[in-house]
């Protein structure tokens, strides 16, 4: 065994040696051995100051290098302390390297007190600051593709928006599954706006045994962030500057003006044809609008807007497209998206003496969004102080401040406008998809003045002078689709650039966090730490919707907007969080082989939220974009007003014992008392146990494997909770109303609803099995984990016995079972070290989610995303929020159509049903009315075989969870240059692209995806076999049925980062009187290979942590994953930057 390994080793070493560089001077030879005399293979031997002269030791630990007397050899190898040897002229220099104990004793942040890395037996993902891409605006983006078992989705690209981090799958139906963040020991709900430059390391606790120390908040994983601290060196000042250019990463294929006009005319004619069939009148596409209406009216069919064609597009006299139809060919994506700059400045000061260490930083980010005028300005400041007050007492003070001002663009949502408070509307990105290319984005001399087709479009409501009054040259063209919607049934969306520019949404977030800790060491190895902290979080949100944005059929500035679509909202939210923590930590090694690490603690945390908002209608002057300008101060209403508080008291303990660095066992326990839990269940208990066995340290293997391989097995089991269950859900409240008593209207009061006094956290129990392998002195490392987690006590509002006084209540479904199981692998290799270093790393994650049981009598829960479409189903045996819809079998041919007509005969003659045992001749349809039967319709799968297409034929089509995800990174450095690249991929997930409801509906009432070119036109032009015929009327057989056509594959392969940097040589730096200079270019999201039809395959509307008011966050978002409703696309970013260290 060991011979074979050594042979492999030798081969590797020779391979590595081939990179060594040409010799000069005398040849110095020698052997590099470890303290116990073993030769060290692969150690780097470099001539100091001449990095080009370096070699690597071979399988016998031998090296030979050309060097001159007086030069210094630097001998280094991972796991050993480097050694420098000054050449005295001897040609043989043997070197003994000592094991680097600091490395072996490397500690890791695991919650409350650091632990020796070798003693940690849970599952953790660790990322050092040096591994983070430094150019991204947020920390989350920098983590993309870096960690196994952690899904980091950039589901939203708006400036100032965070990412979704999900650790090992979804384990709740309604409670948030965002992980807990702990910044320098302070647990917070999130910290999207932390300055990535301040971060020293990030640890993500993945398994329940590790997270159990965070008890009722640990079930979704814990992200531990450690910021940089001062050191004993003399002060150094670092200044970073970068400038980035962002642009739309992927442009969507949409129809151009000619293609849209073709679709539009075809859809109207096909609808006219369909009604002609119904009415039994002759169809002639040359019939003008008046003839069409009259012909159908004569047979009792009253149709107009769906069967007539606007003269703007079609000239019946010429029997051809009107000249106006192609006046414009607007590429709305070009109008809506733009290149945007992003500048960052960072200054940090780091230094200290033996007793006082400090780190202070100031960061400024000014980021414009790719959808103008969105933008984000952020200031981050941080001061970390550490003082050794006496020999036994040390004190540290952390202060961090964030000030972020964001100008938002309403990207997500339905493009139609909605009334006051209808936050799901005014979606500009969907508006960009459906914006008709034949309409202008900007007013020019030509399109102002009186336009007969426009006025015709609005049925005379709009007069030429009104039209002219706001369509002045040089301004944005407004409301074209709004007024064409009135008579010709176009989508009533306002121009996306008008919505983006005129809908004023601003958000200001200010966070201050002050935290102080004192550590007292009464005897050696015993540390008592007291931490006190407070965090203040303020958020101001304001929105002003001027009447310059059309709404529905009402065009900009029309009086009808005043009653619902001219409003302002202003709201503020104030959070205050206080933390008190006392921990005692004892570490002791004794008897040579025994080592214990014990922790006990007590914490208290209190969080208050106070939210006040108002909303007003009707404003006289759009220049005052504030609620104060309402002309009706009496109409000001409450908006989102609430106040709440939650508290948590916890006791925690952890005991770690290791023997001879071979066997490690850790047990932890936490008791959480929470104000959120019901009166009868105030306390929750979260135990965990884990063990590790370092195989390679066994005496019988140690020598054989030394320097070649380390191996360690880990196993853990733990219990953690999710306490995102609402604040007063277990407290019964009183409602009031009125009734008649004694002949008078009298007040009544009553308990609002039954509450479950036993309401408590959701519980996740997870088992983790892990394997850590290291090869060649740690040059190749593999970490693999398998886990199986079962979540129970899932929170849901289910039917309860009426005798409780209510019919449903929010409760923990005790028998519920949600399983997540899978594995994650992280493989890192330092292929080259020495003058050229080359590392590669890859990670792979696979998770399978399954609902094993919901509750007695509950098999499934369906959820409607939009437009009353039950797109998602949570069903026993399937993943949470699986997609359901109809399966399609193709497109109805002329022959199918004729067969369907035969079926129709039978159906009608049998009294609107089929005789028993009847075999359909054509495909099954939902409705046999003639206007719904046509060649080019979709054929749906009659799943239940009842000869009819009904809702019962919906099937589970797939889900939004990837089959597997992963990433790989590589970095290469040589002579001051460094090159790094990161890639990420995801396979097997689906997304319900609900923009399809408008952009892939074949109506031609708004623009459509390019795929629509492949539609069925007639037998000679059957298209691609799955895109149906164009129609404008509500065709019950094809219409808006949510089918597999709307569920897109969201597989992607993305180059998430690439950077090239150069560190100026010391000599240059010294000449310039600086410590270091680095220049770099970076690229983020450089390319994405995907077949996804929308902008971003990572979209997840209801789980986005992005800009949302509280009313817009869906509590049951977990059950509606992978939903695209126009989220802000993610940008590609090119960055140029430099770093100066003084």
């Amino acid at each position, binding site marked *: 065994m060991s011979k074979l390994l050594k042979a492999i080793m030798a081969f590797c070493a020779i391979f590595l040696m081939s990179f060594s560089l040409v010799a000069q001077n005398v040849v110095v030879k020698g052997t590099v051995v470890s303290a116990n005399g073993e030769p060290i293979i692969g150690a780097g031997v470099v001539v100091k100051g001449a990095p080009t002269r370096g070699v690597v030791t071979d399988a016998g630990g031998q090296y030979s290098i050309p060097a001159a007397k007086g030069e210094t050899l630097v001998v280094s190898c991972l796991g050993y302390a480097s050694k420098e040897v000054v050449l005295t002229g001897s040609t043989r220099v043997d070197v003994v390297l000592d094991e680097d104990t600091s490395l072996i004793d490397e500690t890791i942040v695991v919650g409350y007190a650091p632990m020796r890395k070798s003693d940690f037996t849970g599952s953790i993902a660790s990322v050092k600051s040096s591994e983070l891409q430094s150019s991204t605006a947020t920390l989350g983006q920098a983590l993309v593709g870096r960690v196994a078992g952690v899904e980091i989705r950039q589901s939203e690209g708006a400036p100032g928006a965070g990412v979704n981090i999900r650790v090992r799958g979804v384990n709740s139906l309604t409670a948030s599954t965002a992980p807990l963040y702990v910044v320098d020991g302070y647990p917070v709900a999130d910290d999207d706006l932390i300055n990535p430059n301040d971060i020293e390391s990030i640890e993500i606790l993945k398994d329940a045994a590790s997270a159990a120390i965070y008890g009722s908040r640990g079930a979704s994983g814990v992200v531990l962030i450690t910021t940089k601290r001062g050191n004993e060196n003399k002060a150094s000042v670092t200044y970073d500057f970068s400038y980035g250019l962002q642009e739309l990463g992927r442009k969507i294929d949409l129809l151009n003006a000619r293609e849209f006009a073709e679709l539009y005319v075809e859809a109207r004619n096909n609808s006219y044809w369909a009604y002609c069939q119904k009415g039994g009148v002759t169809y002639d596409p040359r019939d003008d609008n008046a003839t069409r209406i009259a012909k159908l009216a004569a047979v009792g069919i009253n149709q107009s807007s769906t069967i007539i064609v606007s003269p703007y597009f079609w000239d019946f006299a010429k029997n051809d497209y009107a000249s106006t139809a192609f006046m414009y060919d607007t590429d709305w994506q070009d109008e809506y998206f733009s290149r945007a700059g992003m500048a960052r400045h960072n200054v940090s000061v780091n230094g200290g003496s033996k007793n006082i260490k400090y780190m202070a930083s100031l960061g400024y980010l000014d980021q414009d969004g790719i959808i103008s005028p969105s933008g984000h300005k952020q200031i981050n400041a941080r001061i970390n102080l550490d003082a050794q007050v006496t020999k036994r007492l040390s004190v540290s003070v952390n202060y961090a401040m964030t000030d972020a001002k964001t100008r938002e663009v309403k990207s997500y949502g339905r493009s139609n406008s909605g009334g006051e408070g209808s936050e799901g509307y005014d979606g500009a990105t969907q508006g960009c998809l459906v914006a008709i290319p034949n309409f202008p984005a900007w007013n020019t001399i030509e399109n102002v003045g009186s336009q007969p087709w426009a006025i015709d479009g609005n049925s005379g409501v709009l007069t030429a002078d009104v039209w002219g009054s706001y369509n002045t040259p040089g301004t944005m063209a407004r409301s074209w689709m709004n007024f064409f919607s009135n008579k010709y049934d176009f989508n009533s969306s306002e121009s996306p650039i008008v919505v983006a520019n005129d809908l004023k949404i601003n958000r200001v977030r200010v966070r201050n966090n002050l935290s102080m800790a004192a550590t007292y060491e009464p005897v050696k190895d015993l540390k008592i730490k007291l931490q006190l902290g407070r965090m203040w979080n303020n958020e101001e949100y304001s929105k002003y919707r001027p009447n310059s944005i059309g709404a529905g059929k009402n065009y900009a500035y029309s009086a009808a907007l005043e009653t619902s679509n001219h409003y302002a909202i202003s709201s503020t939210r104030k959070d205050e969080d206080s933390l008190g923590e006392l921990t005692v930590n004892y570490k002791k090694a004794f008897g040579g082989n025994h080592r214990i690490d014990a922790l006990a603690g007590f914490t208290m945390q209190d969080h208050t939220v106070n939210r006040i908002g108002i909303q007003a209608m009707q404003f006289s002057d759009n220049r005052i974009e504030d609620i104060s300008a309402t002309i009706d101060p009496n109409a000001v209403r409450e908006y989102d007003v609430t106040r709440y*508080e939650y508290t948590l008291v916890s006791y925690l303990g952890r005991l770690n014992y290791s023997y001879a660095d071979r066997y490690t066992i850790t047990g932890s326990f936490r008791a959480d008392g929470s104000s959120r839990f019901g009166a009868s269940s105030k306390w929750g208990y979260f135990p965990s146990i884990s063990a590790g066995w370092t195989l390679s340290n066994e005496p019988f293997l140690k020598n054989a494997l030394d320097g070649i391989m380390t191996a360690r097995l880990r196993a853990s089991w733990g219990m953690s909770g999710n306490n995102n269950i609402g604040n007063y859900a277990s407290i019964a409240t009183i409602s009031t109303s009125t009734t008649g*008593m004694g*002949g008078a209207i*009298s007040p009544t009061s009553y308990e609002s609803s*039954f509450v479950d006094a*036993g309401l408590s956290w959701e519980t996740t129990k997870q088992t983790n099995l892990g394997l850590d392998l290291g090869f060649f002195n740690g040059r190749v490392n593999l970490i693999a984990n398998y886990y199986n987690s079962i979540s129970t006590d899932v929170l849901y509002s289910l039917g309860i016995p*009426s*005798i409780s006084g209510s019919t449903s209540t929010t409760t923990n479904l005790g028998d519920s079972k949600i399983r997540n199981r899978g594995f994650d692998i992280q493989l890192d290799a330092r292929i080259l070290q020495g003058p050229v270093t080359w590392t590669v790393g890859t990670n792979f994650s696979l998770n399978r989610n399954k609902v094993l049981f919901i509750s007695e009598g509950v098999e499934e829960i369906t959820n409607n995303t939009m437009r009353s479409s039950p797109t998602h189903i949570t069903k026993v045996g399937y993943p949470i929020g699986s997609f359901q819809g109809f399966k399609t079998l193709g497109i109805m041919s002329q022959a199918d159509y004729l067969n369907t007509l035969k079926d129709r005969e039978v159906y009608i003659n049998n009294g609107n049903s089929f005789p028993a045992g009847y075999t359909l001749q054509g495909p099954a349809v939902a409705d046999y009315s003639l206007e719904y039967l046509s060649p080019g319709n979709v054929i749906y799968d009659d799943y239940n075989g009842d000869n009819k297409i009904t809702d019962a034929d919906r099937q589970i089509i797939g889900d939004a969870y990837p089959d597997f995800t992963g990433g790989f990174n590589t970095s290469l450095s040589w002579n001051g240059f460094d090159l790094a690249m990161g890639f990420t991929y995801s396979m097997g997930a689906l997304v319900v692209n609900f923009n399809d409801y408008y952009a892939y509906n074949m109506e031609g009432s708004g623009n459509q995806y390019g795929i629509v070119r492949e539609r069925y036109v007639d037998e000679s032009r059957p298209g691609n076999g799955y895109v149906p015929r164009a129609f404008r009327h509500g065709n019950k057989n094809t219409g808006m049925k949510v089918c597999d056509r709307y569920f897109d594959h969201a597989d992607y392969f993305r180059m998430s980062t690439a950077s090239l940097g150069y560190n100026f040589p010391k000599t240059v730096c010294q000449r310039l009187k600086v410590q270091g200079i680095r220049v770099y270019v970076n690229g983020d999201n450089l390319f994405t290979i995907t077949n996804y039809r929308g902008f971003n395959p990572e979209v997840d509307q209801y789980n986005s942590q992005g800009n949302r008011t509280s009313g817009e966050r869906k509590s049951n978002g977990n059950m509606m994953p992978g939903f695209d409703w126009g989220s802000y696309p993610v940008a590609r970013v090119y960055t140029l930057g430099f770093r100066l260290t003084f």
Partner: protein
Amino acid sequence: MKLNHIFAITAIALLSASCQDFLNLSDPNAVTTGNYYQNETDMQNSLNGAYAVLKEGNFMGSSNPYFEECKARMLTYPDTGVNAGENASFDNCTVVPSNQFVLSRWNIIYKCIDRVNVLLKHLDDITYTNASVRNNLEGEARFIRALCYYTLVCDWGDVPVVLSKLESLAEVKAANFRKPKADVYQAIYDDCEWVISNSSLPDLQGKAGVGHASKVAAQTLYGKALLQKATDADFASEKSSLCSKAISQLTAAWNKKPFGDFTTVDVTEIWDVANQAAAKESIFQLDFVGGSNAANSSYNTSFRTSNIDDDSKEVNAKKSAGGFFMSVPKAESIWDEAGDKRFDILMGKGKTSGGLTGYYTVKYKDLDASGYYGCNNVVLRYADVAMMLAEANYHNGNATEAVKWVNLIRNRAGLANTTATSGTALRDVIYKERQREFAYEFKAWTDLKRGYNASEITSIMKADGATEFDNADLLLPIPHAQWLLNPEGLYQNPGYKD
């Protein structure tokens, strides 16, 4: 001070901070049940909250006719496809366990019981100016609860009995099983008994107290419940003693009447919306106040047919019509004696519209121009006491006394004494008189079950054209959605398929 001491003190301070206070937070956005009950007004409002449930549509409001008039085929609700035809399944005798009206009725009655139980739980949270205030609150609350259980036992037979606030889901689950009818009746009797013996409620509330329960109300309900049990074949052995008890309660109620000769009490007196609160005949009414949507009723719109024949018999200001009507042959076969004031004054006819002609009632007439009506639901009145005395005496074998009571009602309505003197002929006269006297008063089905046994009812219903009627229809099905939560404990009534 030594540093160790500072630490020790801080640690103790942290640990001794009262965890329990720290963790017990209450919702600042709402008054919680825990801290709501502070004074007598809170208690009174809470009681009003229980009364309010009685008036909700699904209980004694707009859906009530489905369960009484429609079930007895006194009223029809044509199948217009509304609510998937569920409205029509009551008079068609095709009610299924998934029927939403049945579920809503079950839910609302238990909601009412829960409100009573919450109030009773908190009744002693405060001290009262006068002990009678407290006892009267309890008395009224118990009366409401007894009324709930009376409805439940008549509609479903065995039902869960909950007499105190259920605090936890575990308690809810444990209590969610059907208890025998006898237990349900006992609960009613206990509550009524308590009102009569322990409360200091007035015998009758009078105008100022309209809507509130009284001792006579409790006695009448007590009598009714005794009579209901006495006429249930399952309690045949107790029939005589129950009838005697019923007679004694009803007689006590009758003796407290605020009028002399009942025949002088006008039949329309209690239906005059302006004066019904003060009506002499009144025992217990659900009080509604018109003029705004704060406490209004909608009975007159539910029962008005479209196209009224006689404009003087218009019943509401908006001329809005509901779906319920009494078909022509039915109405004419009930009121087959000339000179019946109740038909001539209190009934109106609609013109044929869409192939349907029907009679409606003028009992809930209110021409308030606001469109919000104040007509009350008269739950208990002296005519009912008199008729129940007739029933009780009949069932107890005292035909002479029974005839006396039924004649009292007939004479008041302008009819001569009955010719029937005994046996089923007298029984038929009594129950037909009830149909006429209490038409549109949500008593018809329950009354029928007191007068006739299962096979007789089947014959009556079949003769009336209810082809789908079978024994299952005697009781309502346990609502499917609730049955699912405990199929064993909430065993389905016979004849229904879940």
